[in-house]
């Protein structure tokens, strides 16, 4: 019985050490990840341009990247003063851009385009840019 309890103590210690080691690894992982976030793909240009003041509603939203966007997971969203604005399907063009048509005429106001995509290395990227619609009269 003494031998069995010694063996049990030994395996308990091994389990505790393994658990402690695993915990250290997870902590290190978390610390490294929280302190080192960055982006991958770069946006080359947008249409409308970031911060643009338009006198009429744009026909479509387009974002050009440094790598070909992944069609399966790419998305463009448009937010306006009254919430989400309906866009057509997001499509990928050969010139490494994402494009979506604006379904309805935009009223005057501030708008934010949010995009999501991934490049050749599969890393998901997110970003946004803004523009304003202010009709000429």
């Amino acid at each position, binding site marked *: 019985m003494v031998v069995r309890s010694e063996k049990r103590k030994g395996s308990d210690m091994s389990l505790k050490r393994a658990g402690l080691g695993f915990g250290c690894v997870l902590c290190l992982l978390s610390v490294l990840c929280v302190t080192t*976030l960055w982006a*991958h793909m770069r946006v080359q240009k947008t249409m409308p341009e970031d911060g643009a003041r338009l006198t009429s509603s744009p026909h479509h939203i387009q974002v050009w990247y440094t*790598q070909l966007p992944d069609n399966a997971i790419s998305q463009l969203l448009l937010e306006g003063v009254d919430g989400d604005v309906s866009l057509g399907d997001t499509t990928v063009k050969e010139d490494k851009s994402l494009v979506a048509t604006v379904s309805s005429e935009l009223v005057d106001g501030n708008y934010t385009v949010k995009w*999501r995509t991934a490049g050749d*290395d*599969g890393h998901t990227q997110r970003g946004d840019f803004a523009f304003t619609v202010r009709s000429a009269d």
Partner: protein
Amino acid sequence: MEAEALSLVYLAFGKWLTYLGLVGLTGAVSLRQLIRPVQIAPQISSRIEQLLQSLVSYANGLVIAAVFVRLYAQTFSVFGLDEPVTLELVRVVGFESRWGGQWQFHAAVAILTSLATVMVRSQNRLGWNTLTVFTVILWLTLPLTGHAMSFVDTSLLWAVQVGHGVAAGVWMGTLFALFLVGSLFCAAESQDSLTWFATLVRRFSRRAICAVMILGVTGIVTSWFYLGSVEHLWRDPYGRMLSLKIFLVFSTALIGAYNWRYLVPRLNNSSATCGLFSSMRAELILGVFLLVVTAVLVHLAMPAEMG
């Protein structure tokens, strides 16, 4: 924790599990090649074979588990920040995205490696050779979902990444397998056992030196392409993480060099062997943290991409 940071934790965790499994498989295969020419008593030899077979089983299990952890992590990084992850979204990422197309290669090979594992465990005479081939193919398919694919000429960087991975697997994996096997020799408590162990360690040392040299050269080439300039080593998050990795590599190699130059020549008694075990343990612990840092590093943006 912010969702984006959590996403990076998941991705890095999945990659870390992959590295552990691949290093384990590589180590088992590599050590078995080292052992074969050495004349070892049959009873110890059969126990070593059983130990290596167990290592292969656990490592293969880790690789397969990591395949699915990485799929979930990738799905979370794409969709999980905006909505709950569902099976449908996992399907989209795994089978419709570009990343998924490459992931499928690696997943298929990981599952096929189970067949090789079964062959090894059933002592099929082709088992270990088959496992060696599948382990190499696993290393070949791993960079398909990484930074190397971002460049115009992917073949060179892909080859460099494969060389880097295999060298790391041979060094760390064989060291780990040797550490496990060494306990059998020391338990036997005979001068013959210590002699056999010393022979194995010397054979491993030569292999480890070659592996470290390949690791260094491939690491320098990769850093050259990914960093763009030396100043990124301290100015950029990727560079700072790479600096940490380089520090850990040097520290680990320093312990290995101490073992090789000071402890291994004195491996003729049990106290020297115990000293070597402690040193090997320190080297392996540093190796585990090295793999963690690498797992995070491969998910950060390269300065060369940022321009």
